[in-house]
């Protein structure tokens, strides 16, 4: 693959390439969503995770299919990284009957039981207890699985998070609390909303804590490796905080008047994907290979979009008849 592989770099490079591919798949999917949204092909609210891809990619690399995750309103990347298929994903966003949730859920309610993705959430902090409950299920089942509970820095202010870290520590539940800290909750800086230290909070409950540069996928990957292995070995909960940046607005269409234009501009230099790209080239990968990879992803996405466009919209009667399971 690489031109002049430095000794030992082959492994690094293969790993980074894998991560890069996943990140690019998420990035391009969201960029496509952004366009579809602008073109009114996707309605409602969507919250893009552009700039935050490293986190779920770095974590999911260590997850098994039966490990569970609960994801946030900004959870497209978290969902795709866990294995939600693109076709069902796009069809869902576009409100089609072929959507992974048959068009009933939308961006904030993607779920895929088949890959352990328990659901995105429209409620800040709404997935935390669900993830912890799945960790309880893993503990009861005893098959060595674990749960990942994604949440944003804004969710730190919700009481249920604190109830859950206590419970997880008390019952030694195998759960990774993964905070994507982008410094913002909607239009407010999180430091104007929450004044606790997540590290110290963990310490107050005897929960191990690690922080990783969420703009560096290998950093997340390495830290998550330690934590996931630790959780599997000890069945103790752990906290992973990743400092990231929110590149787009809170929701698509958010003019972000509340943000300093300088700060927004400075983001460009921080793009985790660009960083990974540069590093891959530095490691000796061919640019053409990366371009081919991008083209492959583009094709996959366009196929998903085309299929969704061609798909039926859901029938109301079928939806109405399916409020209860039978």
């Amino acid at each position: 693959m690489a031109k002049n592989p430095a000794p030992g770099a082959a492994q690094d490079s293969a790993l980074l390439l894998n991560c890069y591919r996943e990140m690019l798949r998420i990035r391009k999917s969201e960029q496509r969503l952004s366009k579809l949204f602008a073109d009114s092909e996707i309605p409602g609210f969507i919250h893009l995770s552009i700039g935050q891809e490293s986190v779920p990619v770095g974590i999911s690399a260590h997850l098994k299919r039966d490990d569970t995750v609960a994801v946030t309103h900004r959870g497209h990347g978290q969902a795709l990284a866990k294995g939600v298929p693109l076709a069902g994903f796009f069809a869902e966003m576009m409100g089609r009957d072929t959507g992974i949730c048959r068009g009933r859920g939308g961006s904030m309610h993607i779920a895929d039981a088949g890959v352990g993705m328990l659901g995105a959430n429209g409620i800040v902090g709404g997935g935390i207890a669900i993830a912890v409950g799945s960790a309880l299920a893993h503990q009861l089942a005893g098959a060595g699985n674990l749960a990942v509970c994604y949440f944003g820095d804004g969710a730190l202010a919700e009481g249920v998070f604190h109830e859950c870290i206590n419970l997880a520590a008390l019952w030694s539940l195998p759960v990774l609390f993964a905070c994507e800290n982008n410094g913002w909750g909607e239009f407010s800086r999180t430091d104007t909303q929450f004044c606790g230290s997540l590290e110290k909070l963990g310490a107050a409950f005897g929960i191990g804590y690690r922080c990783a540069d969420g703009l560096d996928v290998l950093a997340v990957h390495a830290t998550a490796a330690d934590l996931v292995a630790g959780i599997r070995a000890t069945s103790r909960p752990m906290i992973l905080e990743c400092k990231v940046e929110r590149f787009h607005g809170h929701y698509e269409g958010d003019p972000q008047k509340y943000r300093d234009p300088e700060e927004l501009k400075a983001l460009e230099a921080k793009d985790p994907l660009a960083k990974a790209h540069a590093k891959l080239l530095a490691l000796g990968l061919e640019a053409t290979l990366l371009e081919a990879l991008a083209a492959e992803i583009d094709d996959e996405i366009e196929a998903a979009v085309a299929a969704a466009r061609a798909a039926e919209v859901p029938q109301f009667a079928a939806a109405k008849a399916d409020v209860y399971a039978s």
Partner: protein
Amino acid sequence: METIRFGQAIGKALGDAMRADPRVFLLGEDIGAAGGPFGVTRGLHKEFGAARVRDFPISEAALVGTALGAALCGWKPVAEIMFMDFCTLAMDNLVNQAAKAHFMFGGQSAVPLVVRTPHGGGLNAGAQHSQCLEAWFAHVPGLTVLCPATPADAYGLLRSAIASPNPVVFVENKSLYARKGGIEADPQPIPIGEARLVREGTDVTVVTYGASVYAAEAAVRKAAEEGIDLEIVDLRSLQPWDEKTVLASLAKTHRLVIFHEAVEAFGIGAEIAARMADVGFDELDAPIVRVGAPFMPVPYSPALEREYLPNEDKLMAAVRRVLL
């Protein structure tokens, strides 16, 4: 036919369900060795151990949320919220999460979750330990709401609730826990959504549920003294509720009184009345009258709570009104 207390019937249903299915487990505050504040789970901790009868911290939101997470993974948790008033702390998990998961995720997920909780007054427990909030849950698509009156129904409906792939709010009137009733030697699940005809009668249909069933039964004799023959329907299941049975009864008596302990305004009775004023309109020979609690918080003083609670005298006044 044996005799069993209402609370024991619930404990028996829990135990039988746990014996029958290893995926059933219990979570709640002080339900373990202590057996729960009303003794309902007594003995279960000893038999099934701490892994399946789990004492939960005083964290109602996390209680329902973790139960939901486990349910989404195929387990069958039965969570206890110690008083229905405390459901206020778990509404997100009940309403936004559990109730919607099946529908919202396109039918992928079953949610075999039961939340047991006691409602009702009469213990002078005050405004935050006595409420009947079942109408809230009946208004939430995706939830099933049950409220049995007899030990046999408590047993049979709880078995159905635990077997259900949908989230169930199982409401127990706390004044019933000590009440005795008959139960079969090998009791079976009772289907959700079917009312129980407590008593056949010809003059007035009384639709009721929970502890109020007994006050309705107490009114039968008083009514008879006045030459009035009451038919009593115990809904048992509030969401879904048995419109067919109520309508059939109304078609017979042409007079309807709805009777419950919950606050009358915007309570369960409102929906029953509204439906009957629509689909049952042609059968009605008199106004539909509801008897529920007055529009006030549950008061503490016995002098006040006694007057607050619906009783057979208030029911009889309504019965007389529909016969005017």
